[in-house]
């Protein structure tokens, strides 16, 4: 990883014209992301871990030698030997990293013992666990030696593979390097809650083989034993300094090639970077400092004078789904420092701030279970938290500081060591005006991504300061906001895009304003999405009334109101899926998604679905998606109202309603809230006196809980309130603005919207009611209408000159009994005429 960054840094400095860069690596892969190694278990595609731009390795001055371990360095002759050939060098950089250490435990080389370091390690581990599971016919018993960061990652991987897992740690707590007693104890409670057994203060003394020769029993120093079928050693790493030792370079007694702040070793033509280097008093085991060293060496090689004098070792991780972060002086090593601790064992949270002796300056901290304060706190290290610091620790604590308060020197991205000042200069000096531009220019937020919200805030603050107006114009063709355009269309009675463009816009429109106009025209009930000119306005999803997937095929979602479906309905959907070989998955909205439908198959698929009584689910549209419900009073012993009945009524009322963004509703039959209605744009929760109405919730990228809008409404009042709320939202929200940010943007906020809905404060209530009743009266299933109209069906062909010829590039593999698109690598095999094994393992 560090070598990759070094080559990138050299190329960025134009050094590839001056230097011939050769990189030797023992692995068969291009440099990949070891930090994300565990993600291999989720997608099983090692290519997804590859780092950076593959074009880097095909540049004229750059050469990557894979499978080519260097076996000797001769500093006197200035050569390295690899595969028996000597290669000369002018400058040599050691970026050999470290290897996983295995403690001197008898039996640690038995079959079934692994380390956790490379893609081959994790691939081997996975294969072993799955095979043993099959052989033994029971869950595999796993043990991880080492309760640090890597050990917990490995435990998570074993658990996900279906193994029972024990973590064995020699110290008295988990993650002893990052956490104190309190943090370790909190983490242990959470981890044990995930069915992982934890043994601390425990030494492993030997491993014993079973009759088949595989590892079978783990023996501890106290004589206790446990049965094991797989063991992962995660007891630490040691710098791979053996080449340097053999070449006579100075090496630290506890490992690591000694290097100065310029990263030069005892031979001035040899540098050391990353985990193999002992620089600034220690070996640095994180990728961030390694990247910083790579930048130093790149700078030195082009004649610069950069130095590495130390780095921020702050970390924030998610282990087994648990947030853990530690930053600054987390162990309160500073003389006289004060510790402020908040612990909630029930909620599984431990948070600690370390402050200077006068409590004025933040020195560091530790967060377990909830690390949401990390992004805000870490840049404040060395500065004042202001006010009451405990506010940062409490569940509904103080707001994070506004970004303008951050000093320029504060580190925002610790992975790539980017300061607030660098991000600000990307805007002021380099003219970057969007997040992508700032990320490309500074590398901030490109590794773990945890700082991206802060980067965005800095960017916006800087843009505002520079007087860059954040215009609400839709695009270059319309100098109006979406809300203004909606009013124009509504009041003027314009019914076509070309008329709208002629009278209120310029140019020919684009991929932004066309779908907005399509949505406005549809919200106002101006015809079918494929009628006349409308057809040229729709995004591909609305144009073919299905959801585009990564390979260019579509998914099909019939409406299942309230999630209630008959056995006959299920069978009909199943038969369609089987007959068209569609991948089938249950959605989060309580319906069924059918994937892999080719564009030319959509009419035939829908013809079957419509015949079976189904209609469009509008999963493709910025429109009502679903009304999720729990089973409610009809069956549930706690339910107080008929939640399914209401959900179906609401879904049938609002189906087909086009809106600025997708709309999701939920109805729960009691306060236990099994329908998760407060995570919806409109949520309804039954009370024993009626319904409580919540608005402005959503899941997704920025999850929001809905806020209480009104209590104990009758069904009639509830429906009227939702009618008005939705139409008001559709008329006034911005493009792609969901209800939560819309409520914030309305002047007066949710109270103002409540006044519009219940007190008719704007005098438009009757108008809103009329608009909704027009929608309800005018609803027609757009798929049924399409099937009746040969002209509309004309567009559903794969090729205009070969209507039923499938896209010849589509390729699939079978996985768990269904098809999925082949990956690039699989596709190469398939196209070369090979065949791929069917994947049957139901794991991960």
């Amino acid at each position: 990883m560090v070598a990759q960054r070094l080559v990138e840094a050299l190329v960025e400095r134009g050094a590839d014209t001056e230097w011939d860069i050769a990189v030797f690596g023992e692995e068969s892969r291009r440099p990949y992301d070891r930090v994300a190694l565990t993600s291999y278990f989720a997608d099983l595609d090692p290519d997804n871990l590859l780092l950076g731009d593959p074009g880097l390795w095909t540049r004229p001055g750059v050469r990557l030698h894979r499978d080519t371990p260097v076996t000797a360095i001769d500093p006197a002759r200035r050569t390295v030997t690899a595969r028996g050939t000597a290669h000369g060098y002018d400058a040599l950089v050691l970026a050999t990293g470290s290897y996983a250490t295995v403690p001197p435990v008898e039996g640690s080389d038995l079959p079934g013992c692994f380390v956790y370091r490379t893609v081959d390690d994790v691939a081997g581990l996975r294969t072993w666990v799955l095979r043993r599971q099959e052989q033994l016919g029971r869950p595999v018993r796993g043990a991880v030696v080492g309760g640090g960061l890597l050990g917990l990652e490995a435990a998570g991987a074993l658990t996900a593979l279906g193994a029972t897992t024990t973590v064995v740690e020699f110290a008295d707590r988990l993650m002893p390097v990052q956490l104190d007693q309190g943090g370790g104890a909190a983490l242990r409670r959470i981890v044990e809650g995930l069915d992982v057994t934890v043994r601390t203060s425990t030494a492993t003394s030997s491993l014993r083989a079973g009759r088949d020769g595989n590892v079978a029993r783990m023996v501890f120093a106290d004589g206790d034993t446990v049965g094991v079928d797989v063991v992962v050693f995660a007891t630490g790493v040691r710098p791979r300094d053996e080449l340097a030792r053999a070449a006579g370079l100075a090496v630290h007694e506890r490992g690591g090639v000694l290097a100065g702040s310029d990263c030069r070793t005892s031979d001035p033509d040899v540098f050391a970077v990353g985990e193999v280097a002992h620089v600034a008093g220690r070996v640095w085991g994180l990728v961030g400092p390694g990247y910083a060293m790579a930048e130093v060496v790149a700078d030195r090689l082009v004649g610069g004078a950069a130095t590495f004098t130390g780095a921020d070792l702050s970390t924030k991780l998610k282990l087994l789904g648990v947030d853990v972060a530690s930053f600054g002086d987390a162990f309160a090593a500073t003389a006289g420092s004060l510790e402020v601790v908040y612990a909630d064992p029930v909620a599984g949270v431990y948070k600690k701030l370390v402050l200077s002796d006068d409590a004025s300056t933040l020195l560091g901290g530790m967060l377990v279970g909830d690390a949401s304060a990390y992004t805000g706190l870490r840049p404040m290290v060395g500065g004042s938290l202001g006010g009451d610091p405990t506010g940062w620790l409490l569940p509904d604590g103080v707001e994070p500081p506004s970004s303008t308060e951050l000093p320029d020197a504060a580190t925002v991205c610790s992975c790539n060591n980017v300061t607030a000042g660098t991000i600000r200069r990307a805007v002021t000096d380099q003219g970057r005006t969007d997040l992508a531009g700032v990320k490309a220019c500074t590398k901030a937020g490109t590794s773990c991504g945890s700082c991206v919200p802060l980067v965005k805030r800095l960017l916006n603050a800087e843009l505002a300061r520079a007087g860059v107006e954040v215009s609400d114009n839709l695009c270059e063709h319309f100098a109006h906001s979406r809300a203004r355009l909606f009013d124009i269309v509504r009041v003027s009675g314009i019914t076509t895009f070309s008329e709208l463009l002629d009278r209120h816009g310029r140019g020919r429109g684009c991929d932004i304003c066309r779908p907005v106009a399509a949505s406005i025209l549809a919200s106002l009930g101006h015809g079918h999405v494929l009628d006349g000119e409308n057809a040229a306005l729709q995004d591909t999803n609305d144009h073919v009334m299905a959801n585009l997937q990564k390979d260019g095929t579509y998914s099909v979602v019939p409406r299942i109101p309230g999630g209630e479906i008959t056995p006959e309905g299920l069978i009909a959907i199943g038969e369609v899926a089987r007959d068209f070989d569609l991948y089938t998955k249950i959605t989060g909205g309580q319906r069924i998604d059918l994937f892999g439908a080719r564009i030319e198959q959509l009419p035939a698929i829908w013809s079957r679905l419509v015949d079976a009584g189904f209609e469009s689910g509008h999963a493709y549209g910025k429109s009502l998606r679903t009304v999720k419900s729990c089973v409610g009073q009809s069956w549930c012993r706690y339910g107080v109202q008929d939640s399914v009945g209401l959900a179906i009524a609401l879904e049938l009322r609002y189906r087909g309603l086009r809106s600025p963004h997708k709309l999701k509703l939920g109805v729960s039959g009691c306060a236990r809230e099994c329908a998760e209605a407060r995570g919806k744009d409109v949520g309804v929760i039954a009370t024993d006196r009626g319904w409580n109405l919540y608005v402005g919730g959503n899941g997704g990228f920025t999850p929001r809980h809905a806020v209480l809008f009104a209590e104990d409404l009758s069904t009639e009042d509830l429906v009227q309130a939702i009618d008005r709320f939705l139409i008001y939202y559709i008329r006034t929200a911005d493009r792609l603005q969901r209800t939560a940010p819309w409520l914030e943007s309305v002047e007066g906020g949710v109270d103002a919207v409540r006044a519009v809905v219940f007190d008719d404060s704007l005098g438009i209530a009757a108008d809103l009611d009329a608009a909704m009743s027009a929608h309800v009266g005018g609803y027609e299933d757009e798929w049924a209408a399409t099937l009746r109209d040969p002209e509309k069906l004309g567009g559903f062909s794969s090729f205009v000159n070969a209507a039923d010829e499938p896209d010849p590039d589509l390729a699939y593999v079978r996985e768990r009994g269904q098809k999925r698109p082949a990956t690039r690598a699989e596709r190469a095999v398939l196209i070369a005429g090979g065949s791929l094994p069917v994947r049957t393992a139901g794991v991960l």
Partner: protein
Amino acid sequence: MSERVGWRRVCAVGDLVPDRGRAALVDDEQVAVFLLADTGRVHAVAHLDPFSGANVMARGLVGTRGERPTVASPMHKQVFDLRTGECLDDPTVRLRVWPARVTDGWVEVRP
């Protein structure tokens, strides 16, 4: 009547919807053909979206950026110049472009 050398007849103009694309097979290559409403001209570019690797460009929305006629990939919305194939979001990427014309009511493309 002699066939015009090199030009391939793809479809009738009436098979295209103004300001929308259709995919076509031309000598086994997948081509996205567009008919623009304002100029009445046809454009032909690669159907393969270079960013996603899927054959979808004909299903993108057409429009203009300044004076340039464009199509946006339906997958991740990168915008391309229909005349040159140049990607306006990433100048290092380009769609292949085929000469295209309308003759006697037929859309023709020259490979």
